[in-house]
């Protein structure tokens, strides 16, 4: 079951990893630029260039600078955050099925953000990530506390996470049924993981925590490698395992919560991106984390672009599309990986 994570450092060359990271980065940039060019209003490349670099000639200032660009930035930030969060949680809980969604962080964050929106509709945007973090932490706290004081097996931890997730999800469903009917609700659209209506205001409240937390996550990657060796070995190597776990889970929780606050629930990214990354560069977190982040960015930015291009002027939520694009790829990877890594 936990074989995928237990296989620690796969002997693959660092050079190959770096080349892969560079290639992925190029892909991400290409996808991001492509996402600037698609949407309900067709805009010629020349106009996009004119607008981006304030050159003479025709420009589309609103659509490019105030609609597509902030969405692109948010898609990149949230994609990386969710992927990193998922990778950390999978390593800490030592369960390949774990993700911020599965252990209830996303639902907890969504519930608290939703309560804030419904109870204080006039509250400024800034408070959304904060409320989401409190919700995500509340959900994660159960898992953290249990992990800290009771020496439970990985599978029990994950199951407790699942149970906590269901409780918060029930809360979200209840709120959506009793208070804001789907007919009138922006929350409903936001919850499906959508970048519709996102502006620089959303970037302003989320970029700093997301960038800072992502940096911390990448810096902590070597500790994940130690934890992945197993608790006894890690302790033997001088790591205070319970404390490190707590710290890592905290970072993962905050990453997922802040992204839920700005782009809603995109459950699949946190599960999928780390597995894709592991397949590409192996289990060493030093390489795997940045690759997972890039894969997450790529998935969300593509999903948002396709969602805008597919049936204009109607938009399909990026969360829905990310699952649709990602799932077949994910299944393929699982089918081709299992036998290799179980051996």
């Amino acid at each position, binding site marked *: 079951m936990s074989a995928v994570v237990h296989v620690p450092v796969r002997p693959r060359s660092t050079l190959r990893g770096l080349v892969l990271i560079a290639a992925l980065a190029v892909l991400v940039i290409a996808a991001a630029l492509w996402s600037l060019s698609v949407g309900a209003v067709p805009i010629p490349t020349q106009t996009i260039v004119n607008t981006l670099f304030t050159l003479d000639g025709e420009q589309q200032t*609103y659509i490019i600078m105030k609609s597509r660009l902030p969405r692109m930035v948010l898609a990149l930030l949230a994609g990386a955050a969710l992927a990193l969060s998922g990778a950390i949680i999978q390593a800490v809980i030592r369960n390949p099925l774990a993700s911020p969604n599965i252990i209830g962080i996303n639902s907890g964050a969504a519930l608290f953000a939703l309560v804030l929106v419904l109870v204080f509709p006039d509250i400024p945007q800034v408070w959304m990530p904060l409320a989401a973090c409190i919700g995500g932490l509340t959900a994660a706290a159960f898992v953290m506390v249990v992990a800290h004081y009771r020496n439970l097996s990985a599978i029990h931890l994950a199951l407790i996470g699942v149970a906590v997730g269901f409780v918060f999800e029930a809360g979200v469903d209840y709120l959506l049924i009793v208070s804001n009917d789907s007919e009138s609700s*922006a929350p409903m*659209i936001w919850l499906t993981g959508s970048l519709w209506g996102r502006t620089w205001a959303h970037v302003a409240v989320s970029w700093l925590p997301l960038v800072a937390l992502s940096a911390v996550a990448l810096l902590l990657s070597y500790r994940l490698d130690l934890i992945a060796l197993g608790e006894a070995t890690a302790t033997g190597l001088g790591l205070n395992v319970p404390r490190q776990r707590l710290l890592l889970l905290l970072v993962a929780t905050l990453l997922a919560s802040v992204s839920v606050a700005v782009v809603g629930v995109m459950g699949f990214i946190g599960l999928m991106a780390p597995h894709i990354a592991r397949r590409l560069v192996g289990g060493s977190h030093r390489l795997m984390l940045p690759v997972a982040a890039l894969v997450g960015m790529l998935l969300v930015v593509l999903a948002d672009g396709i969602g805008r291009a597919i049936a204009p002027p109607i938009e399909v939520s990026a969360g829905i599309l990310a699952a649709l694009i990602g799932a077949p790829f994910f299944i393929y990877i699982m089918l081709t990986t299992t036998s290799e890594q179980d051996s």
Partner: protein
Amino acid sequence: MPPISLGSSMFNRAILAVLAGAIMLAVAPLAQAVEIRHDLGTTEVPDAPKRIVVLEYSFVDSLAAVGVAPVGIADDDTRESIVPAYTAVIGDDWKSVGTRKSPSLEVIASLQPDLIIADTSRHEAIYGALSEIAPTIAFDSLTGTYQVALEAAKTIAHAVGKDAEMEARLAEHTTRMEGFKAAIGDVSAWSAQFIVDNGEGIFLHSPVSYNGSLLAWFGFNNNMPTPDGHTYEEAIVKTSLEQLSEINPQVILRGKYADPGLTDSWVGQPLYDNVEAVKTGNLVDVNAHEWSRLRGVIASEVSGANLVEIVKHLKK
């Protein structure tokens, strides 16, 4: 290119200043902005905006009432949803900006509007984004009453510089509506209920909803309890067969979005067959789109004319 010489500079400057002043005076009243107070704040709207985008059907109604054609409509990507009563006035030269629930900000921006009219509850979350595109005013269309719709129509007319036209149109409206009321006669002995049946559920439009208040204006009673507020859930109440049977209206106006509807599957069940309106044959099918989605000056006249016919055939 050398600067064009204007000769004796003092004299010319004086003439230019006078000319400029005269032009300013002539243009000033035209270019004056109007301050519009609306549900989400106070907004400066340029005088007589020309390129208007509307995000609810009732705002199409308000504009059509004073002969103004919007450039963009959130028509749920269904052009037929803008009924002939509207297209007769506004024509067909408008662009769909997507659904009312999540209109495309890009398409709205590409139309380069000088005024956006939004719904208070639907579009509050994107009010900031809309305001970045153009001055945006918001009214409670979705959950407002007939009276609220008329008030909004007046404010919208003011925003587009058509006060006089709206005043005349509302006078005509009152005459028409009073005419319908007279033709309908005294219906205070009847309890009437508008319901929507979408095949999966039924939704009762409560006394605080647009249709509830419209039926009340014509003198009908309503057996539903009147809610305190006017949120969406209080205006449009999802209802079970048991609850419908308890409310037991004498007349049901049914708008079906699915055929067969959920109510059709209830035929034969005693609880349903004994609902007063069903028992006496006073369950009348009406146009779901026109009744449940359209609100405003013109829409209420369509409903009024419809009601005159319906009442003729009601069975005692």
